[in-house]
């Protein structure tokens, strides 16, 4: 049984004091500890941004790749070793902006990757530009006339694509978030959790106080399997913002449907040159 210390990397986070990422980091360490998943038993693939640095502060197998490209890498890892827990981590700019196309197709594939988006509705690392989830009208140094584009709603987007697990969490409600993450990990297919997280340095609109006044956990009677109701719930953004599992279905994951890995993960399948050679002798006959 690991201890919390086993997840420490000994590196000091480069985040601002008060950053929502600290709370998220703490929750994740507790989740892995409580689920008894040791550092070598999972992989975090991350992108670029403040959230992309996550695995440098949480000990595990780590592939900190390119901006926007965590999902393709995570998909490759999962297909090569589907018995491994594969987590993709990034911010709103990373996952919804630069990597938007990959999100769409990861959802379609229903690859069993867990995507946790640290959504602070702003670009932190590049110092305060609008992100896809910034609210219309937000003025920044780079958007002097305010954000002109419609705010992206990752929840409705995911439900429209029939994403098999769609949830929203909040860094300010750690126990709730922990429960969500555990559900996402237990889910058979692709899971998306959009984690609302204040950026204390750059986002002066969506502050702790702002979220605190609006965020509420979904009622226990809420049925996340009802897609139409889920869509209605996902549209809720304003005075009240629901957190919890908004939509869920049980369609089979991609790795369950790839025939060549039915018996063994790809990486566990031994490569035996003599056997390949023997098979090739048969294949070469096709050319005569």
């Amino acid at each position: 049984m690991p201890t919390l210390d086993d997840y420490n990397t000994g590196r000091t986070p480069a985040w601002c004091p008060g950053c929502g990422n600290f709370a998220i980091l703490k929750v994740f360490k507790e989740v892995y500890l409580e689920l008894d998943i040791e550092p070598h038993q999972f992989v975090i693939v991350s992108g670029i941004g403040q959230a992309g640095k996550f695995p440098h502060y949480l000990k595990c197998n780590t592939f900190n790749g390119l901006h926007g490209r965590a999902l393709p890498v995570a998909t490759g890892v999962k297909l090569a070793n589907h018995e491994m827990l594969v987590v993709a981590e990034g911010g709103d700019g990373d996952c919804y902006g630069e990597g938007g196309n990959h999100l769409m197709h990861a959802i379609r594939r229903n690859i069993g990757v867990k995507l946790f988006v640290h959504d602070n509705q702003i670009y932190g690392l590049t110092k305060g530009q609008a992100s896809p989830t910034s609210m219309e009208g937000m003025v920044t140094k780079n958007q002097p006339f305010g954000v002109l584009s419609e705010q992206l709603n990752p929840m409705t987007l995911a439900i429209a694509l029939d994403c098999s697990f769609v949830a929203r969490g909040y860094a300010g409600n750690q126990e709730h978030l922990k429960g969500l993450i555990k559900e996402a990990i237990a889910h058979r297919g692709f899971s998306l959790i959009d984690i609302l997280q204040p950026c204390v340095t750059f986002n002066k609109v969506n502050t702790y106080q702002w979220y605190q006044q609006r965020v509420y956990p979904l009622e226990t009677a809420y049925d996340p399997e009802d897609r139409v109701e889920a869509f209605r719930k996902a549209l809720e953004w304003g005075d009240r913002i629901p957190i919890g599992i908004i939509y869920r279905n049980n369609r089979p994951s991609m790795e369950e449907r790839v025939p060549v890995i039915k018996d063994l993960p790809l990486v566990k399948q031994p490569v035996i040159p003599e056997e390949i050679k023997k098979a090739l002798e048969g294949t070469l006959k096709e050319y005569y």
Partner: protein
Amino acid sequence: MFLFYRLYNEKKEAYLDYSIKIGGEAGQGIQTIGDTLSKVFSRSGYHVFTHQDYESRVRGGHNFYQIRFSDTPITASRTKIDIIVVLDKESIALHEGELSEKGMIIYDSASLKEKYERPNFLDVPFAGIALDVGGDRIMANTVATGAVLGMLGINIDIFNEVMKKTLSKKSEEIIKANEKAALAGRDYAKTNCISCDFSIAPPALKKMLIGVNEAVGLGAIASGLKFYSAYPMTPSTGIMTYIAGKAKEYNIIVEQAEDEISAINMALGASFAGVRAMTGSSGGGFALMVEGLSLAAMTETPIVIALAQRPAPATGLPTRTEQADLLFALYSGHGEFPRVIFAPGTPEQAFYLTNRAFEISQKYQIPVFILTDQYLSDAQWTYPDLDLDSLIYNDYRLRGNAFAALPEYKRHAITESGVSPLGVPGEAKHVIVTDSDEHDEEGHLIEDGETRIQMVIKRLFQKLLYIRGEMMPPCLYGSENPEIIITGWGSTYGVMKDAVDILQKDKRIAMLHFSEVYPFSNEEAWLELMRKARLSICVENNATGQFASLVRLETGYVFDAIVNRYDGRPFLTEELIGELNAHIGRL
């Protein structure tokens, strides 16, 4: 000193050397006729070379399929054609001038709605015969194929074997009808082609007929490939299609990614997870991959990339050929890092070099390119066999007990060779950490200059030193004491060799062919040879002579002349000889 491939040189005069062209619109079945005839020739034991020329459309336009076959080894297409099968009028206008002295055009006057009375035209009612004997016009192409075999006097039994294999999923009835149609076509041609004068050598041992995309795919499979992700793009798609066709048999995951960015990143993910992974594309698609290439370099994740060139910029000429992405492949990706570029000149080289690409990329944890082009991708060659015993497979990954037994593990540990231990995630308690940011030995991101310098020395300088030692020198063919040297790389191998075969009858001429293009090997005998020669010519299927620039950059050597072709078409032997003679004549 030099690389010697199996050259298959039989020092004898060719008894026969015929070229056949099938021309028409896309969708008329040119490829079916071409593929069938090529297979019949290779199964009859002849040496075969085929190449294709087609437009970027599914129907219409003008396309052709060219086959050359002989009883001695051949490596390129010739411009003079002995039999042209025309399926449309445009083919006559475009290709009649290419007919050899005894050459014949066969056509169906009923389909073309025109009769040609010239002596070298043979009117065969393809559709009419098909309807009469097979009961369906659809077998017109089978009649045409039979007619060609009749003109040449080639045994029809082998055709029947090939056809049965191709139509294995069709009913016995359809196969029988096709047999009858081919026979009727053959008999018609035999009876009516009074001026046909072709001599056929007796059949020999049957040969394998294989193209480069298949050879790259086979080479990858032979190397233990487990994961291939790509986005379709001509002319690289054939590799993906081939591997997908073998995915079940060899337990390979082939994933069509949403774009090329995803394709290379997926392959890197699979490689990081511990399996051999590959991607492939052409110029524009590869342009999207270059950030991923740089990621492969920084994270030291092994990957093999097939880059099938076509004319650019941008969409360029999608179905045509060019060798203009050599310097792009060489300089693609931001930052400085080692890479290896192989450019096979034949399907056989493509097979072995793909195997070597996996070996080198795994050993040094670097990206390795297989650079081909449309001409090469769509060409087919014959061989007696492929030697499977010379394949290399070494697993350089740390797995299982060997990994678990290590007291400590650092993914990017500094070592003398520059190569750090590559563990498989999950196989031991050690975690594997890597980063696109500059990182320390453990793989965590850093900012300090000292660590950066150590990493550059390890990742770039140390590795490159050892990689250079692995690289093979160019292949020398022709005179061993040449006065004239023609140099090239990749797909020009065959046509340069063909030109040397012809020119060396009265000249001291040799070819230097680079299939291991970058980095240059430490062996520099080839440079001495070029310095001693009276005339050195670099032959390139591009506008600027990119390889010549690279040679100058790496060695300071300047070629006396460069022969370029950049109309999107490959060099053909006679044209290349013409260009070479223009320079040789000035000696």
